[in-house]
């Protein structure tokens, strides 16, 4: 047999270990197991040297085109990541540790998680946050379960301005549970339909879900609607885009009870869909119903400050089928990236990135609206993303522009019937004025063709 990579014992060690165990070979270690269970040798390629493996993956990776100029967002954004984020998150002391079950040997992970929780509270305007969930979609589902547990009710109302990807996930996860799932169509102005919500709120509704800015990029102030939700003793859940919270009103100020979102924009690469960062924040009142790990501050016997995983009686390793969630491993390293990112850019820098995104979108909106036949789909209130209506099928237009090296946006017709001509475009600080001008020119020529 060939040398097995990454294994530490030498042939000589092995021989001595065999002798110590009184066996002649590896097979004897498995002698008690019924012989007919053993499989044939695997039908997979032979192992590669490190150099060969790297060459192989480089070759495959080159089949991706990463030089597209990207205006596609739809919840997942191409922001700049400062070099120090990668440098620090690539420290083996962080990324090769396990979940901090032994707090004295894990204060690095634990303190960073505590700092992260603090940052999430400050971004969202909420009182407490957990240490992370898988992604924005699973976080939203966890929020639904949390709200239904808190209220003892079984109905949820979901605004259709919530990401259609997340709505599909909610439908998937609730299919085996006694959850009455109801979507409320978007209002004609592109934000949550007040009247429809008020009509649907009754004493079976445990939660109402909104997204701000919503899937179309539209901003809203949901304060009054949240008050209505509270009047019927239901909880308001808000899914948010953390980069927008640089400038946009906080869900906390609007009265949200549970806030979730996708933290990818805080220093995580797009990475073809993951790993990402689900975050969740809530009020002190609901903390014992919250899923996932939570880090708390305490002291040791000498009174020195330290951090531990706390309120663990909610979790599966203690409560098993009665736990608030089945989650075990979360995405702690992604949360670490987020707190490093937020610390590096700081209070001012975060605001600047937010303004740059917003200004670029504003500039593009103005320019795009001048193209004959192009109309804004909704109003002018957006952060860095907005929808336009084209005189043609948006998917065809995008396809033509992809061929010219531009990912011009996301055609929403895939998820919204009757919106086949609507294109959703996102602008981050990475897009230049020149790139926006080229987008506008090429879009205009494709529309003319």
């Amino acid at each position, binding site marked *: 047999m060939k040398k097995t990579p990454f294994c530490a014992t030498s042939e000589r*060690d092995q021989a001595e270990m065999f002798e110590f165990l009184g066996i002649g070979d590896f097979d004897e270690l498995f002698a008690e197991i019924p012989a007919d269970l053993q499989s044939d040798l695997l039908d997979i390629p032979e192992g590669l040297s490190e150099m060969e493996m790297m060459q192989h993956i480089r070759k495959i990776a080159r089949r991706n085109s990463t030089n597209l100029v990207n205006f596609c967002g739809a919840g997942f954004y191409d922001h700049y990541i400062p070099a120090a984020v990668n440098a620090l998150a690539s420290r083996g002391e962080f990324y090769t540790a396990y979940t901090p079950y032994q707090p004295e040997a894990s204060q690095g992970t634990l303190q960073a998680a505590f700092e992260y929780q603090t940052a999430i509270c400050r971004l969202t305007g909420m009182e407490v946050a957990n240490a992370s969930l898988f992604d924005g979609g699973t976080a939203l589902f966890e929020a639904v379960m949390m709200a239904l547990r808190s209220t003892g009710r079984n109905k949820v109302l979901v605004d259709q301005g919530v990401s259609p990807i997340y709505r599909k996930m909610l439908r998937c996860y609730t299919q085996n549970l006694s959850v009455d799932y109801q979507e409320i169509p978007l209002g004609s102005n592109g934000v949550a339909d007040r009247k429809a919500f008020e009509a649907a709120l009754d004493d079976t509704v445990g939660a109402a879900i909104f997204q701000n800015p919503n899937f179309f990029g539209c901003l809203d102030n949901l304060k009054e609607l949240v008050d209505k939700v509270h009047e019927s003793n239901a909880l308001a859940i808000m899914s948010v885009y953390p980069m927008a919270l640089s400038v946009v009103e906080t869900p906390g100020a609007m009265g949200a009870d549970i806030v979730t979102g996708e933290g990818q924009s805080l220093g995580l690469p797009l990475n073809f869909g993951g790993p990402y960062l689900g975050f969740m924040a809530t009020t002190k009142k609901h903390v014992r119903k919250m899923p996932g790990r939570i880090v708390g501050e305490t002291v040791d016997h000498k009174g020195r400050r330290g951090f531990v995983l706390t309120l663990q009686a909610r979790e599966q390793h203690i409560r098993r089928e009665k736990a608030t969630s089945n989650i075990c*491993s979360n995405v702690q390293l992604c949360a670490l990236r987020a707190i490093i990112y937020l610390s590096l850019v700081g209070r001012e820098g975060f605001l600047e990135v937010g303004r740059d995104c917003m200004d670029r979108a*504003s500039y593009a909106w103005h320019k795009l609206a001048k193209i004959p036949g192009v109309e804004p789909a909704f109003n002018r209130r957006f952060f860095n993303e907005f929808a336009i209506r084209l005189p043609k099928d948006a998917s065809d237009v995008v396809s033509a522009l992809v061929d010219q090296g531009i990912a011009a946006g996301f055609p929403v017709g895939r998820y919204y019937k009757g919106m086949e001509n609507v294109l959703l475009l996102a602008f981050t600080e990475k897009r230049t004025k020149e790139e926006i001008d080229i987008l506008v020119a090429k879009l205009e020529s494709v529309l003319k063709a």
Partner: protein
Amino acid sequence: MKLIYEKSSPGRPGVRMSSIKISPTEEIPAKYLRSKPAQLPEVSEAEVVRHFTALSRLNFSVDTHFYPLGSCTMKYNPKACEAAANLPELTEVHPLWPQLRGGGLLTQGSLAILYHTERILSEITGLAEFTLQPMAGAHGELTGVMIMAAYHRDRGNTQKDHIIIPDSAHGTNPASAQLAGYKVVTVPSDDKGMMDFDLFKAALNERTAGVMLTCPNTLGVFEMRIKEICDAVHGVDGLMYYDGANFNAIMGRYKPGDMGFDICHLNLHKSFATPHGGGGPGAGPVGVVEKLQPYLPISRVEKTRDGTYALNYDEPKSIGYIAPFYGNFGVVARAYAYILSLGRDGMLGTSNRAVLNANYLQEKLRPLFGEEFKGRCMHEFVFSGEFLRKHGIHTLDLAKGMIDRGIHPPTVYFPLNVPEAIMVEPTESEDRDTLDRFVEVMAELVELAKTDPEKLHEAPVTTPVGRLDEVKAARDMRLSYS
């Protein structure tokens, strides 16, 4: 150590983020905007780098310490796998590009990695099809039991209302079963550490939707009667679920599919060497037998006739969307690099050595601890610290003593069916010197427990903090800095 917020001072600049300004065309009304910026730290870049570097040094990790944490497979995470997965051609791809018409052709590399990883995982588990979408082990379990539910619904098996799970199972198993709408029936373990066969048979009936098993189980014991268990469950049209957290023991030797399992998840962050990240991200791909393929989550990666890769969204019987896209791609890419490195022989070579190291360590420790479960173990083993109770010493004290001696403690107090459990998983990454040193340390600690237990109660003393007051943490609920 100070918090990053305690190092903050107004006006201190971080990384320069502002780019060339583009003037906005209009202002947004104030009611949509926050009145004050978020109070993020104001610290220089150099200070941030020092802060997080200093924090990292407070951790034990695989890169710095022996980390025999049972059930967690803390093997070495090869740097080459990191380098491969961090290629910008992979990390800079937007997940929606393949959904733009014509865009699929621009992401052929990423799709190829997904496709080939699925194919290889199918081969090494003996299961027909895989999805890479689940984002951790527990998420794979939930996906698996949802597939179970979809199957039974489709078959009109309306009477199915519970899932059988042995008491040695990880807490995520019952928690996941419950989230898919099932009741949980717990079956105790017998004196060999296997699921008690008679009690299992008594629990099994027409209402059993399936059984979730970990094999080898969390005691490091192989379920010898696995074939009989599978046959019995299939006899009532139930499905067998394989929790693959312990796959490192059998990789390349046994296949869950051949044993009779219908659904299985693998923890790429265990057996397949992707780093654990201090608590994730991981990945928990799920494999199924042919008949369950229609229920796998949307989308599916396919190879078309012209050799290109494409995503298929047209699966009417699918359970739907469990993830926003295709799973934790970055984690999958690391595992793919690892699998390519190991290859055909390396899979078996790895599990062989993992099991050898565990057996060696178990035999070396037996004189100290007696035997909890007799005979050979697989890749990990459990012993009990109960015999030290009479000296006032608990498993936790031993664990803290290990920290002072530079070893990350094994898993303690799990599985729940062993009192004062200590669960050791050395993995194949460790050489004999490290294993021998562990034995010496354990001997020293047991001796200390008997002669000077007070010393152990004080441990750890070499860490930045000593034992922390967890009751106070839960009572005070200081969960953020203010």
